[in-house]
């Protein structure tokens, strides 16, 4: 069951799939976390797809945890609650980097046993309510939560939530065909499952919309009001000015969900390694 080693820390999941090295993205995330919060604890949950972890990469994580095997890694997400080595966890998707010290978040997040991030931001630091591409959420009256960033702590309430999420993953076909309107996703996504779970569990118990800083900059082009056919990194400049990432000439002070998996080039990773002294 639970195997807590630390009070608090940052957790991500990295199951490599279809040529995408999620573990490398998780590594960059851990570098970014240690760059701005040197004392923070980081953990990653991996599966057998992650092999030959070098000492350099291994030492940036405080914990590397073997997760259950799955041909649909998203369904492993609820299990993170039981796998985390932290009593309090901020869970991030692996393609998010952190650009400033966010330790103060812990004090605010402790208002709840579980906090899902709500809405997202554009690079101009404006909150974006994505009503066009999240029409499904509106149709089903679901909260606009983003699974990319969440907080949970060892508690009865969080246990209930993740048991519920696990159950929804297991019964997705029924959910898709008999409960949700216009649900066209063949396989369950965490964004859908967690928003349904939040609805059933009680939105008021798992979101704090007034904590409007607890969200990330989403680099999907429609969030930025940019042409949607092209990856954002082909549209605008980005540069690393550590600890910041500058996108379209604006420093990003919020977590950046860069989304395009080939954005972290070796050059970018080397810059982080160089400043953290790991290369």
């Amino acid at each position: 069951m639970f195997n807590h080693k630390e009070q608090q820390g940052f957790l991500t999941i990295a199951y490599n799939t279809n040529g995408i090295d999620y573990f490398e993205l998780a590594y960059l995330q851990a570098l970014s976390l240690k760059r701005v919060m040197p004392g923070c604890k980081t953990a990653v949950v991996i599966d057998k797809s992650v092999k030959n972890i070098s000492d350099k990469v291994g030492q940036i994580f405080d914990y590397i945890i073997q997760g259950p095997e799955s041909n649909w890694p998203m369904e492993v997400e609820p299990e993170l609650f039981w796998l985390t080595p932290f009593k309090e966890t901020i869970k991030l998707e692996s393609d998010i980097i952190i650009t400033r010290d966010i330790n103060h978040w812990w004090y605010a997040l402790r208002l709840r046993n579980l906090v899902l991030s709500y809405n997202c931001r554009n690079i101009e630091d404006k909150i974006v309510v994505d009503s066009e591409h999240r029409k499904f959420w509106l149709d089903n009256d679901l909260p606009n939560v983003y699974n990319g960033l969440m907080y949970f702590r060892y508690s009865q309430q969080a246990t209930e939530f993740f048991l519920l999420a696990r159950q929804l993953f297991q019964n997705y076909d029924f959910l898709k065909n008999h409960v949700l309107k216009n649900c066209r996703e063949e396989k369950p996504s965490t964004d859908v499952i967690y928003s349904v779970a939040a609805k059933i569990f009680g939105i008021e118990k798992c979101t704090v919309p007034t904590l409007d800083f607890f969200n990330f900059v989403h680099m999907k082009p429609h969030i930025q009001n940019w042409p949607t056919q092209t990856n954002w990194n082909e549209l605008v400049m980005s540069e690393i000015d550590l600890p910041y990432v500058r996108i379209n000439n604006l420093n990003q002070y919020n977590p950046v969900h860069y989304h395009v998996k080939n954005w972290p080039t070796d050059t970018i990773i080397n810059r982080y390694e160089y400043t953290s002294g790991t290369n």
Partner: protein
Amino acid sequence: MNTSKNNVESKGIVLFAFNTDTVNYVEIADRCAVLANKFLNLPVSLITDSHAQPKFQYDKIIRIQYSGRNQRTDVVTKKQVEWRNFHRHSVFDHSPYDNTLLIDTDYLVFDKSLLKLIEQNYDYLIMGSSNNFQDTMQARMGNLGLPYVWATVVLFRKTNKSKLFFNLVGRIQRNWGYYVNLYNIDSTQYRNDYAFAIANIILNGYSLESKNLIPWKMLTVSDEIEKIELKDNMLIIRTTTKAYVVPKHNLHVMHKQYLSSDNFLQLIQDV
């Protein structure tokens, strides 16, 4: 903040005017100066070239060597016309005042609102945004670009931060081709509005958050104007197709031919 040696801050207005083949900007500056001086009661200085023959009794006339070529699209004729808009950044060095109000010659002062600003604590302030009657005022430098500001109205004191700001504007002007690409600017024509916006973004830590913006919007009239009348503290702006009635307040008028017309001269006498 720097003040002059006797600790009394000198304040004044500075205008730039370089005549082109199509527009007598110096004449427009003379007219703008009458209005600005009347409502703000501040000395007005002109930065111009050696050929200009201004009529207004300026506090100082600063003559510089104009260099550079640029064009703009005339808002009425839609033709490309010469645009002598370089050197704006040099106002920091040329202004004779500790605290300067820099305005474009097509910015018509009809009230004292800028006097409230000039007493505030700032290094520099720029007009952040503008309305027009059609609500179609472009607000970004390009489809992928960032919001721009209006260099039409700028206030600054001679502080280190202001010096950095104007030096940066100068660097942006000199390397305009580079910044056009970097900032995804749709047009290659140099615009002070864009250069000032970029400098402000950089100086604010590559952020759009800025304390250097004037806390109200400017009204820009981009239509072809036939006449502006003053009646009961209202301005009646008659264009070729419409008439707009607005409270008497400062206007940014893009129609240069109107500003050179007898109708405008009549308005100045009526005010």
